[in-house]
């Protein structure tokens, strides 16, 4: 068995112990009725909506499942995720805590989600506690190490952030969020030259990260490279505008104010961000609704077949 496998077994055991302890205390974990095909279709649709950045539609979709007593854990978890994206951190935390109390499946993933919800809410100590538990259960959980580094950075504990981040990146060198945290940490450590190199490399892989662009602007200005900073600022502004436009267009389309022009603009906004995958998905979605629109068909010619 690999170390990761052992840790997973350990984590499941840890989760099972939690459940067993609750049961021994007389708080027997309730068991939800089995899901049928219609339920699973609803859950799949909810996942799809989350993936396509339409979290506001998820609570209504899940409402029938959430009204059950007990609530299916899967629905509770998706509702928690939707609350995360809707920035309702309190609901997110409540739901994820309920999920963790009742079900050991994907325990570490869900713990991670809860940790980041705590961090988003500004409850850094709670987030730290969770991430520490996760890495204690599975020392190879790169996301939790990143979570620890993220929280330590927020709290200004730079040596702790360095230890956690090095562990995260050693486990998963291509983890873009951790690489961005590395840039922020280098900057906070006063290692500006290295931060500038790292952020430039990161932006090659993640050009739509406007926070990284913002940091690049700051680092360039600190070096007196104002022309390059101005260029980076223009890129940042373009990325920011594209994201704002995507949010506006997606909201408009979801609200039923849909036409080929909006769909074309959405595809182009994704392309502006350098996100070809999302652009392709947006185009396929548009062609499904407006298959004969010449503008959309012309756009499609620019994409290689899947």
């Amino acid at each position, binding site marked *: 068995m690999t170390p990761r496998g052992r840790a997973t077994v350990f984590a499941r055991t840890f989760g099972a112990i939690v459940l067993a302890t609750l049961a021994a205390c007389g708080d027997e974990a309730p068991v939800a009725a089995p899901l049928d095909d219609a339920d699973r279709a609803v859950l799949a649709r909810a996942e799809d909506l989350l993936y396509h950045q339409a979290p506001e539609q998820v609570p209504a979709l899940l409402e029938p499942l959430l009204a059950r007593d007990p609530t299916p854990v899967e629905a509770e978890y998706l509702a928690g995720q939707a609350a995360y994206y*809707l920035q309702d*951190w309190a609901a997110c935390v409540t739901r994820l805590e309920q999920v963790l109390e009742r079900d050991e499946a994907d325990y570490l993933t869900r713990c991670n989600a809860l940790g980041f919800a705590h961090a988003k809410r*500004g409850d850094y100590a709670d987030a730290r506690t969770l991430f520490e538990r996760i890495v204690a259960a599975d020392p190879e959980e790169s996301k939790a190490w990143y979570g620890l580094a993220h929280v330590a950075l927020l709290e*200004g504990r730079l040596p702790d952030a360095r230890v956690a981040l090095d562990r995260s990146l050693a486990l998963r060198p291509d983890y873009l969020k951790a690489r961005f945290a590395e840039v922020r940490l280098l900057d906070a450590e006063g290692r500006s030259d290295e931060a500038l190199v790292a952020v430039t490399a990161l932006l090659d892989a993640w050009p739509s990260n406007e926070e990284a662009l913002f940091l690049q602007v700051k680092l360039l200005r600190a070096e007196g490279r104002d022309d390059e900073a101005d260029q980076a600022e223009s890129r940042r502004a373009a990325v920011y505008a594209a994201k704002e436009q995507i949010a506006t267009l997606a909201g408009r389309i979801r609200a039923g104010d849909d036409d080929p022009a909006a769909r074309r603009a959405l595809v182009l906004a994704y392309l502006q961000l350098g996100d070809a995958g999302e652009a392709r998905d947006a185009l396929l979605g548009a062609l499904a609704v407006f298959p004969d629109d010449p503008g959309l068909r012309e756009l499609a010619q620019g994409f290689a077949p899947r």
Partner: protein
Amino acid sequence: MSRSRRPSSRAGRALSVPSIAGLVFCACLPGCGDSASGPAGSRTTAAADGPFVDAGLLLAPLTCGGENARTILEVNGGGLALFDADGDGDLEILLVDPGPYPSAGVASGGTNTLYRNDGGMHFVDVGEASGVGVPGFCNGVAVGDVDADGRRDVYLTRLGPNALLRNTGDLRFEELPEAGGAAGDGWSTSAVFVDVDLDGDLDLYVVDYLAFDADHPPLHGVDGRDCRWKGMPVMCGPQGLPAQPDHYYRNDDGRLVDATAAAGFDAPPGYGLGCLDGDFDADGWPDVYVSNDSTPNFLFLNTGHGKVVESGLAAGAALSSRGREQAGMGIAAGDLEGDGDEDLLVTNFSMESNALYVNDGGRFDDRADPMGVGGPSRRLLGWGAAFVDFDLDGALDLVNANGHVYPQADEPGTDTSYAQPDTLWHNDGGGRFSPRAWDGDAPAVSRALSSGDLDDDGVTDLVILRRSGRPMVWRGLAPERRSLTVALDGGPGNPDGCGAVVAFTDAEGTRTRRVRSSAGYQAAGDPRALFAWRGTGTLDVRWPDGTHEQHAVDAPGTLALGAAR
């Protein structure tokens, strides 16, 4: 429009810390139980475990439109000024009351009130004769001696033309036509008097918010508007409403002349809410910082002789640490690191967080999170803010007012609330802040805040306005007479020495304070510099004209300087 009226019987009514004697006396007088102004009905004063205690002052309640704000006009609340209106050395209190929602064809305006300071936390409503009760939906206030007669004048921001009230002495004010040239015609929120061109008189910067037609207010569901927050219909704005440009008025021998473009203040309009003067790049020329709602904040750096360049983005003081514009409201400035330059605190919307722009030679870095004021502020929506050393340990602490804009914040799923606790942040001396329990933790819908030593005991006190209702006065409880207060007089045109920088060096190091009257958000505050007393030292004053003077100081107390300048 007619002037707002108040019963003449209010004039001369005393407000003071409640006492048994006062209550007995009150019970014997008919009408004394008027809850708007008499000591009967005072709040119960909470246990005095500090660092502030309810001073028990029953200042006049303010109104800002309807009970539940239906429009964005009714959100921002009123203003206040703590300033020496009669030149006797202590601080009067001016409350700026927006009043009911302005209706077409009907005279509008709340009841602005000036309270005379009689010492010992004892204040008297000057009454209608003060002349501060001008009509209109007033929001904010700035204080400065515009006509160089040595008396502090008052500028009121309003929906529509603003007002300049000339101080004629003896706690009397008269409104000048066209606000002395600075009337404008938008919706102004905050303003600051600052000698931008260093010619010895105070110029004026006025912040405007957005275009608002009170007769046709933007409402959810009207004119196709779909104004929502977290899926709920809410009042509309600021997004979707046109932002308005700010204005800069140069003081030409007492006449305020619009020099916005000529001086370089003509930045693209933002949703302006707060402003503060400072010398953020330490070049001796006054700069202006502006907090904008939902648009990048401005930093107007003075390039000399009254010309400025908007440098917020370039200097790193426009956006959050993540590069996002936030809903800038209140501003506080203070030298947190002891490096001689001032850092900036900006309060923001819920689910954003306070921004704390640490100043490193004119370049700013938002370190709100590592310095402790980020996370705990995320569920709060902040307004007025001030750096004050409330425990007199030598490190600047922080206080900020909170309260949401949407009454709907009390609905489930918002992760915030309409009424919120005002936050007191303790500085551990190493630049790390943590929230501290205090009597102001009780949730309220607060807005503007100002700080000053109201009872001249060497301890900073606070006044916090509610969006609607009675202001709170908090008396500082740190040990009395353990501080050094420096009161400057810059002569006619600048009686408070605004723009001077005062540095006190003792055995533990140097602390620096800028003398200013602006309190950031719709308010003016105590311009005097206050230092916790840690022992003898040397006081260095750099006057706005660049001259220095030094004094050896061997005891705490008040040091008045510059009257003969």
